[in-house]
């Protein structure tokens, strides 16, 4: 009985993703079941549709920059919190992880009204700011474990031997955190790359990320082309997930 519940649940969890990939391989323009022949023609179709290609480039740039900026900002902040243990440490940590408590819809509304108020509606920088804020909580949590794992004695040794605090940070601490930084980067990249709701609320017509473009396309019609481009998005997620798993980052992220 329990085995059956588990089996059924796992199928239901994976079904929507599997069915998208499956349908993207249909040779005809209709989804006819059962599917006996497979074709990659809809992938060619999707890749020759400029709307999807532009959106993919925008999404990749956005996710890359958001992850990189977040990692630098959060590494510095976490280093300050972990090494100096200031009196407000708990409050700082709470503030930095607070975006988790604000749902994507609420944050999207706030961002929309904010970017319009300060006059950066439909500009990349507004989108970048939003994505940085959205991934900060996850970066803080993952980097905190990383920095804590670096023995403080190594930094003392470096400073006793004459290196400054900053030089020690760059030459000793940073290399020791490399693995955690890479997994943190990949995780932030993935979160930003698959973010939909906040982006839909705040973005302008000329700045549609790939998930938003898929959303607008789907509101119009559902055809194998949109299944193919969705399957490509899933592929990107799977590649990043596998990399994360190889680096051992997933175990740490799921254990938190």
């Amino acid at each position, binding site marked *: 009985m329990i085995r059956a519940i588990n089996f059924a649940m796992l199928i239901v969890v994976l079904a929507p993703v599997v069915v998208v990939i499956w349908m993207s391989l249909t040779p005809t323009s209709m989804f006819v079941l059962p599917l006996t022949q497979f074709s990659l023609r809809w992938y060619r179709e999707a890749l020759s549709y400029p709307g999807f290609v532009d959106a993919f480039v925008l999404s990749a740039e956005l996710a890359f920059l958001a992850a990189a900026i977040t990692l630098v*900002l959060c590494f510095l902040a976490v280093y300050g919190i972990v090494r100096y243990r200031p009196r407000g440490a708990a409050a700082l940590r709470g503030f930095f992880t607070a975006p988790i408590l604000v*749902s994507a819809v609420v944050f999207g509304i706030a961002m929309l*009204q904010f970017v319009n108020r300060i006059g950066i509606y439909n500009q990349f920088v507004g989108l970048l700011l939003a994505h940085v804020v959205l991934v900060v909580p996850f970066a803080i949590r993952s980097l905190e474990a990383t920095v804590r794992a670096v023995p403080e004695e190594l930094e003392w040794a470096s400073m006793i031997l004459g290196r400054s605090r900053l030089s020690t940070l760059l030459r000793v601490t940073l290399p020791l955190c490399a693995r955690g930084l890479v997994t943190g980067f990949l995780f932030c990249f993935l979160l930003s790359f698959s973010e939909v709701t906040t982006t839909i609320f705040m973005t302008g017509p000329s700045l549609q990320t790939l998930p938003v473009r*898929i959303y607008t396309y789907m509101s119009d019609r559902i055809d194998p082309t949109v299944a193919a481009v969705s399957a490509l998005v899933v592929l990107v997620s799977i590649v990043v997930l596998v990399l994360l798993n190889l680096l051992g980052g997933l175990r740490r992220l799921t254990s938190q």
Partner: protein
Amino acid sequence: MRDSAARAPWLFAAPLLLVMAAGFVWPLLQALINSFHPNTPQGIDAGQWTLGNYARLFDSFYGGVLVRTLRISIMVTAISALLAYPVALFLARLPPRAQSLVILAYVSPWLVNTVVKALGWTLLLRTNGVVNTVLRGLDVIASPLKLMLNEAGVVIALIPGHFIFVLLPLWAAVSGLDPALTWAAGTLGARPSAIFWRVVLPLTLPAFVAGLVINFIMNMTAFAIPMFLGGQRNLVASMLAYQVNLISLDWPLGGALAVMLLALTLILVWAGQRAASFLTAGRGLRP
């Protein structure tokens, strides 16, 4: 020296603090302030203050949308609650390698964007979709079932989408239990059901409650799934927020909606934490 040591952590945190102030605190304050101004055809009237936007949220139309959102969210959380223990207990008994593999399977849909999942569920549940085709092929049903563009479709698609938020904390709590506890209960003659109700459940209840709260919040604010699986006839709060903010451009009302959703979230999180600490303290147990 003392002085610079006291200032140093704040210097390290300063860049992130600035970004968070500009990109997180300011936008939320902006929406809060807008929600207290009246909306006019010329835009927001910043000279006037009103509570009218909040009052409008409780009229019959907006109130009805809120009730539907609550109804769907409660259904999803209740069904997830029933499924959580069987799945978590089963998982915790698997060998470690299998465990991490199954957890990966449960986590992976969370990292795929919800629009793709909405597409998948549409392909599965629509009239000529996979589920109806298979059921008709097997002669289980004569005519296709209406599985989407109703509340049922939203519930069906949201359960697996947000199940991970209940499962992960519960699985961590269950696998963190000292095996000696259940073993001891067993040697003292407790049947498996008694071990569950009197040992496992009380010890893992805080994690369970915490997971349910997150699950409920995610259900309340889901956007893409209700949009495609429920359709315009089954408006929920997030779709309403989209219409108000991006189609009627009534930002004061939209801001009020955001503030109310946020307040609801924070109250629930607070209540969840209180419940969890009450549950642990009341029994003299530590998780």
